[in-house]
């Protein structure tokens, strides 16, 4: 029986990369972030193989909800072999969270921070952008939320001073 394939690009492609990289516990969060950035900038589209009986499963891969332990899909085209893990230096000023919140609101800022997986990098970003997040948030999702809340406080603080 001929196997079906499905093209992924944009957000679904990024979700796919993320899952593939997460399936390699040997990679540090920093290395994962660096590889993700590299793949995002160099790959326009991937085509993944979908087994006929596993189509529902494939849909879950493409979506963001399920988190299978190993990716059942295989890349058959376009994806270059992952470069040697020489992580590009993390830029703690990107995204500029205050600017993103001002322009697009909380959700846009959370989405912009979503590509940073490492809690250490998120904390580094918060420190450099003078966004006070305290010690409580532990998971990446919590740290992201705390960063955005701190940016909102920062904006409100400045508005108050200018009244």
């Amino acid at each position, binding site marked *: 029986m001929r196997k079906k394939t499905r093209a992924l690009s944009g957000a679904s492609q990024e979700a796919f990369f993320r899952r593939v990289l997460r399936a390699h516990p040997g990679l540090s969060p920093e290395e994962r972030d660096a590889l993700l950035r590299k793949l995002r900038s160099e790959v326009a589209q991937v085509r993944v193989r979908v087994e006929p009986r596993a189509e529902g499963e494939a849909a879950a891969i493409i979506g963001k909800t399920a988190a299978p332990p190993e990716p059942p899909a295989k890349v058959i085209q376009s994806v270059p072999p992952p470069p040697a893990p020489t992580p590009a230096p993390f830029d703690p*000023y990107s995204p*500029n969270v205050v*600017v993103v919140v001002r322009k697009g609101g909380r959700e846009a800022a959370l989405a912009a921070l979503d590509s940073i997986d490492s809690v250490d990098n998120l904390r580094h970003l918060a420190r*450099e952008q*003078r966004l006070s997040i305290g010690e409580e948030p532990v998971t990446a999702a919590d740290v992201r939320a705390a960063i955005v809340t701190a940016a909102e406080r920062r904006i409100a603080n*400045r508005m108050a001073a*200018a*009244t």
Partner: protein
Amino acid sequence: MTQFLAMSNRKGGVGKSTISVMLAHAAASWGKRRVLLMDLDTQCNASLMLVGGEGWEKASRAGHTIADYFYDRFEKVAEDESTYVLANIGDVSHGRFFGGRVSLLPGSQRLEDIQNELFVMQSSKRELHADAVAVQVRGRMKRLMKHFGMDFDLVIMDCPPGLSFAALAALDLADHIVVPFRPDFVSQFAMDRVAMLIERVETGEQLASIPFGERRYSCLPNGLKGDGAERMLLEQLALDHPLLKTSLPALDSIARAFDWDETRKSMEQKYADALPHLRALHDEVFGVAQLRAKSA
């Protein structure tokens, strides 16, 4: 027609005096303008940069400073304006036949005291509310400054960090205002406040409703080191304020240019590797100011 340019920021140490002097030299040398630098700052840094300590002290003892000018005029002492001016000063040679030159109305440490004195003097003359007297004093200073500048092509007013009557009068009078700033955390608060003062609004929302193209001021990033923190702050400030495209990096040549030296030199000798930045600043500031003056 005289063009009035104010250099202002309520925060100190952002380079107002340095940039005032640099632009005065540039406008005289490249724009061939007769430039008057009006030193409204009681620190008198621009005066010291242009005539040195002895030159400034001599003018001060002779009663030829901006404070004396205001006091004399309020007292109706009829000295000619030229009495107070130190003409053709500074250590840059503008060339005998080029027409451009820099003159100075020297600053005075007594300017703040004299403003208070003038306020009290005016209050005692009429039965007016303090606010009305303040408006009157400010208005009179504005007229005097305008009158003083009439013999020049360009008047650069180096404003003090505080909100003295003279500083407010300068902001009222200016065709355009350059707000130099260092990109640090507190700068954004200072910029918001000076912008609201210039545009005569009371809230950030009111300020935001004025399109950048209609604002009377432009902000000049100064002393940049080129790091990510600066880039981040500039992006944030650019959401609320019109920033000039030109910025001035932190250069030793700029700091060294203002060690007082009696020897006249060329712009190239004085400003060295800062020269291209100054050229860009000159072209942009006078381009923007010209544009605003025409549209006003």
